[in-house]
């Protein structure tokens, strides 16, 4: 009886992957750490705030996971997010009904993703440079379109304010703080993309592309198409991230957005996706994003001044990447 039990436990661990298990463990430990050291951290409102601050980074991270799996990178997601939000906001101010404006935001993000994809797969520009260019273009474009003004989307109290409840409901039932409905959307999106990555042709080709581009091409796969699709996914999710951003923060300012991409990429890497490509998981990305969010919310709670917060977050990132590299080396020598 005993030998059979041992085997199934081992296979379970293998299926989940040690990297992800370490990440989940780290997530729980970090949360407990802050909960012990700061009373107010334990409140439900703090938990909901952690969720609030992770939606836009989470969506960005899900999208860019696909690009990183192809071995590329997308530096434009932060500014594309802001630019899409601004352009959607301008359309809304000009009279487009809110649901269409929100849809337009997602489509605009997808369009920028398409531009990125074409530059990388057809024009063969290095992903770093192509997306860096798009980042700068969209950074300026947002200011051009709005005339450097910021755009404020309807507040919760306004007639059009219902969209906010998609991500955080108002006081409902006995819950004064509202329900973090955005978490359901984020997990839903993550599940859909995880299924796409592991069970569909799209996902498999993208993984193959990242693992060995030449071999994939020689097997007859249209790598131009699939590489472009990875960037379109990234851009679309930047658009979705934009919708979640305006739902939580209401006001979007041109010229912002820089740095969000690095936060998202940090989440992706902590979650186990390698920057070398060929390997990745959406679940890992979500875990990585939440680790970053908990750090960002928790460190101020234990009274640390801003400079210490940045310092510690940097160390956590380095430690996480080191763990991933070591894990990978171990796998190779086995």
């Amino acid at each position, binding site marked *: 009886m005993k030998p059979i039990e041992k085997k199934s436990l081992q296979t379970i661990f293998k299926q989940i992957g040690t990297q992800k298990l370490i990440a989940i463990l780290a997530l729980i430990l970090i949360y407990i750490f802050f909960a012990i050291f700061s009373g*107010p951290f334990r409140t439900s409102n703090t938990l909901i705030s952690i969720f609030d601050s992770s939606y836009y980074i989470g969506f960005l991270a899900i999208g860019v996971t696909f690009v990183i799996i192809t071995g590329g990178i997308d530096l434009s997601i932060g500014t594309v997010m802001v630019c899409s939000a601004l352009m959607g906001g301008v359309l809304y101010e000009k009279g487009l009904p809110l649901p269409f404006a929100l849809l337009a935001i997602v489509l605009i993000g997808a369009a920028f993703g*398409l531009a990125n994809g074409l530059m990388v797969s*057809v024009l063969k520009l290095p992903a770093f440079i192509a997306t860096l260019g798009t980042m700068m273009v969209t950074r300026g474009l947002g200011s051009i379109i709005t005339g450097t003004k910021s755009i404020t989307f309807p507040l919760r*109290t306004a007639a059009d304010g219902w969209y906010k409840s998609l991500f955080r409901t108002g006081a409902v039932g006995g819950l004064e703080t509202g329900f973090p409905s955005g978490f359901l959307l984020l997990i839903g999106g993550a599940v859909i993309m995880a299924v796409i990555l592991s069970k569909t042709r799209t996902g498999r080709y993208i993984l193959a592309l990242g693992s060995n581009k030449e071999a994939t091409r020689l097997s007859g796969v249209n790598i131009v198409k699939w590489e472009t699709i990875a960037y379109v996914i990234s851009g679309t999710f930047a658009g979705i991230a934009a919708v979640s951003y305006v739902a939580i923060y209401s006001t979007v300012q041109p010229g912002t957005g820089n*740095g969000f991409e690095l936060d998202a990429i940090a989440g992706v890497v902590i979650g186990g996706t390698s920057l070398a490509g060929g390997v990745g998981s959406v679940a890992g990305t979500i875990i990585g994003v939440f680790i970053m969010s908990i750090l960002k919310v928790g460190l101020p709670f234990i009274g640390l001044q801003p400079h210490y917060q940045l310092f510690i977050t940097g160390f956590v990132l380095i430690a996480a990447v080191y763990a991933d590299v070591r894990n990978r080396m171990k796998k190779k020598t086995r």
Partner: protein
Amino acid sequence: MYFKRVMADLKKCNRIAAMGAAMVLTVSMMLSGCSKPEEPTSSGNASSGDKMTVEIVAKGFQHDFWQAVLKGTEKAAEEFGVTTNFVGPEGEGAIAAQVEQLNNAINKGPDAICLAALDTSAAIDAISNAQSKGIPIIGFDSGVPGAPEGSVAANAATDNYKAGELAAEKMYEAIKDKITTSSDTVRIGIVAQEANSESITQRTAGFAEKMSALIGEDKSSVEGHDKYSRKVEGAKVIIEIRIPTEVTDNAGKTEALTLLNKEDLIAIYGSNEFAAKCIINANEGMNKLGADKVIAVGFDSGALQLDAVKSGVFYGSVTQDPVSIGYNAVKLAVAAAKGETVEDVDTGCQWYNAENMDSPEIAPCLYE
């Protein structure tokens, strides 16, 4: 014929890529075509006839406050018949970018420069350069504190220290009973955007010091950030200052949240539009702010803050007169360029709340 051959030669893929890129570019250009008009009179020509030029380097456009300042400068430009060029870095943390813009402005050889420095020491070289070229500098908003002797002719600004004091005085009226009747320690929170620029530091310091004076220096302790620390053990009132790591909605909201979560918090102050916005965002779902709850006081305006003041979530806020700041900055610049002696102009600050925010004195100072 030749064209046909070229098109045929192009591989199908390249054509699609070229069309795709062209489409994105075209759409972008079309959309920029229907954008709102850009800032006026951007002078590519330094001296068009006899018109004077004034280069204005602001702290950026990250807050709509600057749009109102811009309007003021346009008003003055029209009135005095000068050409102005209003620039600013993308964000209020971009010190290096602003120094570059200042250098560009100096190299254009204008008749005068208006400057709201993000960080004076970073701009020292540029300022000395302007001085040696004989270009007068007029400070506005934050001004150029600590500038070398004689380089800045005058300032058009709010007395930010006084403005901070005003906020403290008004807040004190609402909370003084709570302080005297409470037996435990109470806390007053301050959210400040950063600790570099003159305007923010003065407003924060003015508030903290006035509040300490009103409560009693021995009964109040200022803590939370090295810059403003005045710790008093066992003080009845703790004034805690929190500054986010970066000037982003996320980081600012988290700092505000830390304060709102403290059980002994009785009041909270945001020393500019960004800080007030973060406090409002942090309050969402907690509903801790209000007349008989935590008293919130803000600064400047902006859509979110105006809504909060109107609905009573905010007890009130202090507004500057951004249009007057811009107007007076250019007015002083023109005078200085003509060689006249100029003096500082205090553009003033006012307290507004739900009752008086629509009055003719206050309304023009507020912006969406």
